[in-house]
């Protein structure tokens, strides 16, 4: 690893972000060109052209990734993207109230998610469908949130995947507390130790809760990996509106390592996250990872990115597609042929069709669910409200039957 100084020392000439109220078109383009795929400091193991780059620091973290494992990562990303596109389409058809697309962030999510061990806990924001998939949460279980039939009721302990959090940055503090608990219980210190990873975006880094999460994790040495997916845009606000420095460099201010990884490189995301988790498992956490990536679609299906960003930008990032580079690498290395790619695509199509069928047939929750689980202990007041309302509804049924 580079020294801590290199982790976080600003490059000469790296100036403050735009001072104007709104970034100009030129500033956006300049920012894009300057950062490109994350600048010189980004950790990359597989180029956009599909070439494997040797890394003295990180190769050992993916020494087990043989051709079969690499095909597995490719398959993960293809399935996740296909399901994401299906859900996006279903929203457009009115079957989902809203969808939060992850297009373009498959490598960041699958790479980091596959780095986790069963004993680890992940705290997502609301776009981490790919991480959910790697934690064994059925993609169908996510759909209820967006079809608005529930708020997300998967078994978080069985999957090591906390419920989604919609308020920006809240989950970072919750994850810090959880990781403190792992430490207090003595679950860190060796290869079998536990760690927590928390996901948030570049916009969230402006939230007080994220700052406080950094402080808490640092002063209690919590085994927590902060995984920031910098997808360049917080709805319509660019990263320049959040920070004067590359986000990973903030870690130095809190006293722990920060590292920027190519968020479109699944191998780099896997390797760097494994390294960070290992640091945490051994009691050397926390660590901040900035996955430098790009949101290829809207923030949500209610958003219109053409109002605030340039098509040039999108075109540049298309060349860095996280799936294509693995595909090229597999093909060039002879690890997969066209028949295999076709087979994966067919599997993805079936995955999506299954998702669609499930979505269309999803039952609406019964009205009593309004009142269920507000409290862990019985609530006579709510029970009475529920009974009265159900009785009221029953009156309508009787009238209809007459």
């Amino acid at each position: 690893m580079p020294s801590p100084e290199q982790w976080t020392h600003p490059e000469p000439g790296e100036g403050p972000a735009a001072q104007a109220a709104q970034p100009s078109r030129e500033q956006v383009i300049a920012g894009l060109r300057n950062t490109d795929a994350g600048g010189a400091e980004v950790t990359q193991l597989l180029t956009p052209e599909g070439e494997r780059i040797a890394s003295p620091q990180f190769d050992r973290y993916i020494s087990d990734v043989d051709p079969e494992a690499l095909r597995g990562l490719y398959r993960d990303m293809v399935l996740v993207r296909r399901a994401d596109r299906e859900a996006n389409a279903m929203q457009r058809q009115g079957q989902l109230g809203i969808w939060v697309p992850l297009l373009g962030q498959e490598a960041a999510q699958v790479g980091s998610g596959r780095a986790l061990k069963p004993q680890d806990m992940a705290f997502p924001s609301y776009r981490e469908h790919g991480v959910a998939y790697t934690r064994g949460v059925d993609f169908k279980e996510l759909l209820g949130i967006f079809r608005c039939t529930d708020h997300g009721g998967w078994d978080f302990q069985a999957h090591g995947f906390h419920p989604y959090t919609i308020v920006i940055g809240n989950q970072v503090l919750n994850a810090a507390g959880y990781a403190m608990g792992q430490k207090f219980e003595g679950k860190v210190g060796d290869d079998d130790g536990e760690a927590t990873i928390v996901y948030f975006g570049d916009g969230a880094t402006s939230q007080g809760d994220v700052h406080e999460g950094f402080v808490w994790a640092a002063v209690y040495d919590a085994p927590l990996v902060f995984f920031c997916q910098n997808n360049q845009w917080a709805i319509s606000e660019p990263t320049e509106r959040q920070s004067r420095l590359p986000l990973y460099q903030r870690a130095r201010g809190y006293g722990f390592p920060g590292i920027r990884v190519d968020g479109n490189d699944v191998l780099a995301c896997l390797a760097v996250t494994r390294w960070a988790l290992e640091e945490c498992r051994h009691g050397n956490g926390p660590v901040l990872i900035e996955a430098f990536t790009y949101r290829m679609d809207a923030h949500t299906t209610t958003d219109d990115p053409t109002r605030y960003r340039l098509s040039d930008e999108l075109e540049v990032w298309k060349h860095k597609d996280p799936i294509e580079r693995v595909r090229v690498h597999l093909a060039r290395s002879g690890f997969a042929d066209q028949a295999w790619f076709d087979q994966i695509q067919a599997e993805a199509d079936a995955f999506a069709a299954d998702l669609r069928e499930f979505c269309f047939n999803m039952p609406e929750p019964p009205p009593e669910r309004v009142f269920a689980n507000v409290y862990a202990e019985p609530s006579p007041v709510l029970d009475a409200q529920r009974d009265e309302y159900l009785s009221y509804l029953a009156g309508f049924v009787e009238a209809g039957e007459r």
Partner: protein
Amino acid sequence: MAAPVKSPVDGAVPAMQKLTIGKALNLGLRAAMEADDKVIVLGEDVGKLGGVFRITDGLQKDFGEQRVLDTPLAESGIIGTAVGLAVRGFRPVCEIQFEGFIFPGFDQISSQLAKLHYRTQGKVKVPVVVRVPFGGGIGAVEHHSESPESLFAHIPGLKVVSCSNPADAYWMIQQAIDCDDPVLFFEPKRLYHNGQLKSEVDTTTPPGPLFASRVVRQGTDCTLVAYGPSVKVCLDAAEAAAEEGRSLEVIDLRTISPLDLAPVFESVRRTGRLVAVSEASSESSITSEIAARVQQECFYSLEAPVLRATGFDTPYPPSKLEEHFLPDLDRVLHTVDRAMGW
């Protein structure tokens, strides 16, 4: 739900002893920590200092820095990490130094603490207690004397309680910690070290369940209902009224959410009159809710409208003026006079 009843360890908690509310809370916390090693205390200055009111005095010395955490200075951090610790299986007891500082933590309380159980269809429990010294009368500067409890009572998923005497302080804190739901525990700071309230506390048997109101003085002419610091004001008012031949019933609400109004309805049906007392501003407050529910349930029993003696709808004033803001014995009696004269 009854709190865990445990035998005092080596005389740490004698079966009966005279305690102030502050000392009772301290011993209650100690008993809860002894009963369950998942109970941890966190907040600003709760460790070596024992809290600015010394409620956590000596706990860090006896339970260590991993169970009594002197935290960084940030309320969202205290609540937010407590949520995560609770998800992990701990039972965190947060101390907010003064009620006026709780608002940076309001987001975590309302967005996460109150809703996680509902959101996950009961799969995530967050048994967090947030201790909040509240109310005025201590001659403090701004933000140190407020009564924001109704803001929390309005949030589904939270439970809100307040104690007014040493026995309740000792037991209610343990019962709140034992509760699987998040509890906002409002402590009447001006009564913490009030020697007049010092009384015998039976540390072997809880006086009753946590979420239940209680008649603390019986009377026949008019009912007073209050919670926290205002209970003493009402009891003093009832004492003074008795000297003039008027009989006032006093009910200590104890639980603010869920409101236990059954004893209030029962009392109003006998006395025909109700005065609700609290330091909080009156608009959209607990006393508003009491007035609404009592007129709904006891309409034919009421001889007068439900009246209220409360703080005014102003920010808490500079404390040289707080005697005008806080409903005192005279203002309570004046309100009773209005009810009686209807």
